[in-house]
């Protein structure tokens, strides 16, 4: 297992570094991006290849800048300018750029960076983010890692830029666990796989033939829980990503499914179906004791904790059709929060706490939507034959989901949409893929 997994051996020494040459700070308002408005007018940003005095460093500098450009473009908030249009070629990032040259090509921000190869096994990535119209440096950062981790360095650079310009934390240095699908619809193989947030480095996590569905990350990003048909009665498993150590979670008088970690990682919330009735249980992962949270004879399923761990959102058809409910984490204080026309399923609480993503089906179409935790402010972000399985970016600004096309040759793909609903994109996967689950930012 270890061999197929990339083990990150690196230490990120990230520290801000100041500017050597004097730059006059102007009185202009600093460049900032309002993330809540959608990508009507993405900010033009120039990201030249990171410079290096070393040939290996030059190659990394080129590849790394390409990944940063792609990250920022995909966010929908930035337009990466074509490097062919650049007038100035900087030779030292410690000196201020010729702002006029960048204004001519209408860049609003410039990222100038360099790669310093300290040894075969250690490199430094340094960059400065410039506000072209303000004529000032917005931030500077130095990162250290092993050269083969240059992709993660690139994502950390993207996160720093995104964070500086939007005032929100980023989401690029993260991974996606998903289900790789192959074979015809009536005989589909479903295998657990993982990849970087941008689709790079896809790898299978399990090699067996058993159908695996609904994987989810632990909050420390080191473990995955999923449901597998390994035995006749399917059950929930825990997998340690680095060691490949796998564990059947608990022994229940029925099938268990729909697992999800609590925000502190100490509790697993899950659904147990006993005598045909599905109820929600919480399992303490240290003592392995379980608490039944719902006792309704209706279907209670798909539970997800609020980031403070005090409340739970879940799916129930106790009112006659599937709707979204919230309750306290001890099972008390149950409230229905969805009231629109149609069926509501698969609610997931945002890591920011401010929204709940869900699936709504109405009029023969499926939608990914969001609402406030009290049920107000419902907005539908997507529409297709079958959209489902929303999962939040670490900063609660982007949602990944599965989209399945109809018919005998129907296939699943992973798509992303931001909270404004304007930035809908397909996420590249090696083949058909479903059930994405986004990790928190990597440590």
């Amino acid at each position, binding site marked *: 297992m270890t061999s197929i997994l990339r083990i990150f051996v690196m230490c990120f020494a990230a520290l801000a570094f100041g500017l050597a040459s004097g730059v006059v700070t102007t009185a202009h308002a600093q460049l900032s991006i309002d993330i809540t408005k959608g990508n009507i007018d993405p900010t033009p940003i120039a990201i030249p290849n990171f410079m290096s005095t070393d040939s290996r460093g030059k190659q990394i500098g080129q590849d790394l800048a390409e990944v940063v450009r792609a990250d920022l473009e995909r966010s929908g908030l930035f337009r990466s300018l074509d490097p062919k249009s650049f007038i100035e070629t900087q030779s030292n990032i410690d000196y201020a750029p010729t702002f006029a040259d960048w204004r001519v090509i209408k860049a609003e921000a410039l990222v100038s960076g360099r790669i310093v190869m300290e040894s075969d096994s250690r490199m430094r990535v340094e960059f400065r983010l410039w506000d072209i119209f303000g004529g000032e440096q917005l931030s500077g950062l130095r990162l250290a890692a092993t050269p083969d981790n240059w992709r993660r360095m690139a994502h950390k650079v993207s996160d720093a830029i995104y964070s500086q310009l939007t005032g929100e934390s980023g989401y690029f240095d993260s991974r996606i666990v998903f289900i790789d699908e192959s074979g015809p619809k*009536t005989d589909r193989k479903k295998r657990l796989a993982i990849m970087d947030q941008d689709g790079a480095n896809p790898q299978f996590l399990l090699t067996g033939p058993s159908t695996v569905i609904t994987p989810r990350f632990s909050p420390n990003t080191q473990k995955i829980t999923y449901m597998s048909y390994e035995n006749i009665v399917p059950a929930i498993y825990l997998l340690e990503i680095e060691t490949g150590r796998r564990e059947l979670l608990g022994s229940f008088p029925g099938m268990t499914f729909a697992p999800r970690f609590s925000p502190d990682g100490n509790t697993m919330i899950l659904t147990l179906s006993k005598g045909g*009735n599905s109820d929600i249980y919480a399992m303490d992962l240290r003592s392995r004791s379980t608490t039944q949270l719902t006792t309704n004879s209706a279907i209670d399923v798909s539970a997800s904790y609020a980031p403070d761990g005090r409340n739970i959102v879940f799916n129930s058809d106790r009112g006659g059709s*599937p709707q979204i409910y919230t309750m306290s984490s001890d099972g008390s204080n149950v409230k229905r929060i969805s009231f629109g026309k149609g069926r509501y399923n698969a609610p997931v609480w945002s890591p920011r706490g401010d929204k709940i993503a869900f699936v709504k089906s109405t009029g023969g179409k499926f939608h990914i939507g969001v609402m406030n935790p009290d049920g107000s402010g419902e907005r539908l972000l997507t529409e297709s034959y079958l959209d489902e399985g929303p999962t939040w970016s670490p900063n609660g600004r982007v949602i990944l989901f599965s989209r399945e096309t109809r018919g005998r040759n*129907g296939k699943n793909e992973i798509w992303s949409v931001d909270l404004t609903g304007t930035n809908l994109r397909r996420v590249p996967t090696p083949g058909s893929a479903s059930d994405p689950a986004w990790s928190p930012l990597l440590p």
Partner: protein
Amino acid sequence: MTKNLILLVSAAALMTACASKPEVVEQEPEPVAAAPIFTPEPEPKPVMQAPVQQQTVVQAPDPNLPVPGSVADFIYQAGGDARVYFGYNQYNLTPSAMDNLRAQAAWLKQYDSVNAVIEGNADERGTREYNLALGARRAESVKSFLVGQGVASRRLTTVSYGKERPIDGRSSESGWARNRNGHTNVMNGAVG
């Protein structure tokens, strides 16, 4: 001879029943193994022989019929399809589902060493986890009915596949109707 005729007639009745349920099969039949075809054999000439008494019981079985007690026999006795079908988002049994399950129960009671896994299935128009819960309800509906008919509860294990095991790839009313089912999966027969 009369006995033979009755057997033929009842076999024909079974075949008819098979073709008419579930009714969606009529519209777009699944490719299933060809059903045995019965053709009347020429009557043997009467020959003087010793009186036949219980001989019919130990007579060699019709080679066109599944071996009694086999998995194929179970499916045959269930009308050719050991699945019962449900309405959209429903888990109550229809009258034809109950007929099918009565035949299943009769077989299971006759071969009481056989255990079965009852698999609940849902169509694709639902979310994965909700459909697992829905499939669990359907599997339980089937199990409860069989237990009510006298099949021991411990012989029946229920499992839900949700929408993970469609038998029909079409995204149409007929395809969805076939995929909403409870399947009695007899993995090992009492014989062979």
